[in-house]
């Protein structure tokens, strides 16, 4: 790591009487999961590098309630939502960016009905905006010419129709973007959504993540790019199950961009 990360909290901003440009919603995976923490850090490096005035909630952040809602526990979901909304509204948050499509979907679509209306962006959309505004530069670096495929997260793609931003970023790496048989609207799930991440799958003849990884491996990518910490885990496990971890990396788009610049 070249320098320490600058990760101010909303409380610190508040103490100085200032408002950040955007709140970075880290999410549970991004905060606690070892693999996802690397994505969080890569994204923070990009934010630091682009001099984005951002803050996190830190210990004041709590699960959005997405897995509880999808498991059918509407009570727990709404308790979580209302608690989070109180915190967000107390800080007068207007704009939120997150690297988790589940947090993205929940805050963007399900919080407004409970009193929390914000402009919510997925980190790939946010990075694309920084790029367009000239605040972020993307170089191909070691990814130049690499075969990269993008796995559409259900909660980013089908759920919210965001397909282009992540692809634009990959193309900026001067990489060769290759598409799987099922992509965009027809993207196949990694198997983690709807609270499946937290339980074993029902009886069947295959794991969903293996099926999806096979689709990816069929087009012989060097990197499978992801835009969701859960997809990342599922695809990484899939690649391991197919014993291809020495040939194929699973990386978040934020990691690709940060690594390309040796941040």
């Amino acid at each position: 790591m070249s320098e320490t990360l600058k990760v101010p909290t909303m409380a610190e901003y508040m103490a100085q009487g200032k408002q950040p440009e955007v709140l970075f919603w880290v999410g549970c995976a991004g905060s606690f999961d070892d693999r996802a923490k690397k994505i969080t850090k890569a994204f923070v490096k990009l934010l630091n590098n682009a001099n984005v005035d951002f803050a996190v909630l830190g210990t004041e952040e709590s699960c959005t309630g997405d897995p509880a809602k999808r498991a059918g526990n509407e009570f727990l979901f709404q308790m979580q939502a209302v608690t989070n909304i109180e915190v967000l509204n107390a800080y007068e948050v207007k704009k939120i960016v997150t690297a988790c499509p589940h947090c993205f979907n929940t805050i963007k679509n399900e919080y407004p009905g409970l009193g929390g209306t914000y402009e919510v962006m997925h980190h790939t959309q946010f990075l694309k905006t920084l790029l367009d505004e000239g605040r972020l530069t993307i170089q191909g670096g070691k990814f130049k010419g690499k075969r990269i495929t993008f796995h559409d997260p259900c909660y980013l793609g089908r759920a919210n129709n965001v397909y282009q931003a992540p692809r634009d970023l990959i193309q900026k790496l001067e990489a060769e973007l290759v598409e799987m048989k099922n992509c965009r609207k027809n993207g196949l799930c990694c198997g983690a959504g709807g609270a499946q991440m937290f339980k074993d799958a029902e009886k069947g003849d295959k794991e969903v993540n293996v099926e999806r990884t096979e689709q990816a491996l069929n087009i012989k990518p060097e990197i499978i790019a992801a835009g969701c910490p859960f997809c990342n885990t599922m695809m990484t496990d899939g690649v391991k199950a197919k014993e291809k971890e020495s040939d194929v990396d699973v990386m978040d788009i934020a990691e690709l961009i940060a690594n390309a610049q040796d941040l």
Partner: protein
Amino acid sequence: MQYLPNILFAIILIVAIGYFAKNVKSLIRNIKLGKDTDVSDNKPQRWKNMIMIALGQSKMVRRPVSGILHVIVYVGFIIINMEVLEIILDGLFGTHRVGLRVLPISVYGFLIGTFEILACLVFVSVIIFWIRRNIIKLARFWKSEMTSWPKNDGNFILYFEMVLMSLFLIMNAADLQFQALDSGNIISKHIALWFSGFSDSALHTIERGAWWLHIIGILTFLNYLYFSKHLHILLAFPNTFYGNLKPKGQMTNVEAVTKEVMMMMDPNADPFAAPEEGAEEDVPEKFGASDVQDLNWVQLLNAYTCTECGRCTSECPANQTGKKLSPRKIMMDTRDRLEEVGKNIDANKGEFKEDGKQLLNDYISTEELWACTSCNACVEACPVSIDPLSIILEMRRYLVMEQSAAPTELNNMMTNIENNGAPWPYNQMDRLNWKNE
């Protein structure tokens, strides 16, 4: 005696339409068993969806082969049915090809010629459909929920169409007057060659026979709809109109829960205060759905609209990997149970009598419900805007909020969220530790 055919025709017509009307009434009654839901927003977008998706078949053509064949059958079916108007007028007034009395021969010929070409195209398309179902055995038509009735239903519809198209062409071919016009008999003139040695009276018998069978066939088909997946030819229109307009990832917030949560979070609320007048009624008897009456009416309309095409199931990640879940089965089960409930009400003078059954467990198992990843692939795939996921979610809500019957691992996850604000057993106070790791 001269008016006997006219009278007979009128009786058949009245009986057929009457029976159809009765079934439509049951259909509406059954759909209204569902809970209310507000779909009055954004009318312009709703009209647009109906025109694009139902009328324009925009989602059908995503699978080009079946999509284009379906468009042919659909356009053919609608346009050829214009001919039914003439048949009904002829039948009632004892005229023959009344269209010729009002239209110039060339226009009439153009219309019938178009119908003949379409009939021929429909016939060929339907044969290809039959081959796909029965010879090629496309996987989606042979999944486990495609038991004997759904399979037969699919084929019956194809046979119906084949017979109706043939009768229409034979009727034209055996019609000496029409053939003599030599306008619009573009296909039937070739069929007429087969009849070349026939006497005039034999031809007349064939023509009359085909004419009667054709119209009786159409009226039978009309009444078959209610019992068949073919009902979609009518319901696709309201169904796409009332389809979800929100982002697919957005799941509804249960209002009754919101009220309770707000109460609990409100420091000024007095938990012992007497409920306000009428407030009691707002609290629903139960959360989520264990039976069809717990679903909303759009979900029930969805069930009647389902074409059993299986596009949803073939895109479902759970189904693709051998799990029991099939979104098509969710829709078929909902319709079957709704029909059962409807018959129960009919048999018990308008009141539902407890029958010891429900949608949950008797039709849809928890194993199916818990296999869903909420990926929305089924919703995206459906050509008529059906949302199987919303039913799965409602049933999960019932399992969790009414029965505390979630799988153990999910209960652990939820306990963690409750206690630590994360689905894993980490302390909320450690949430920013990554920064220094």
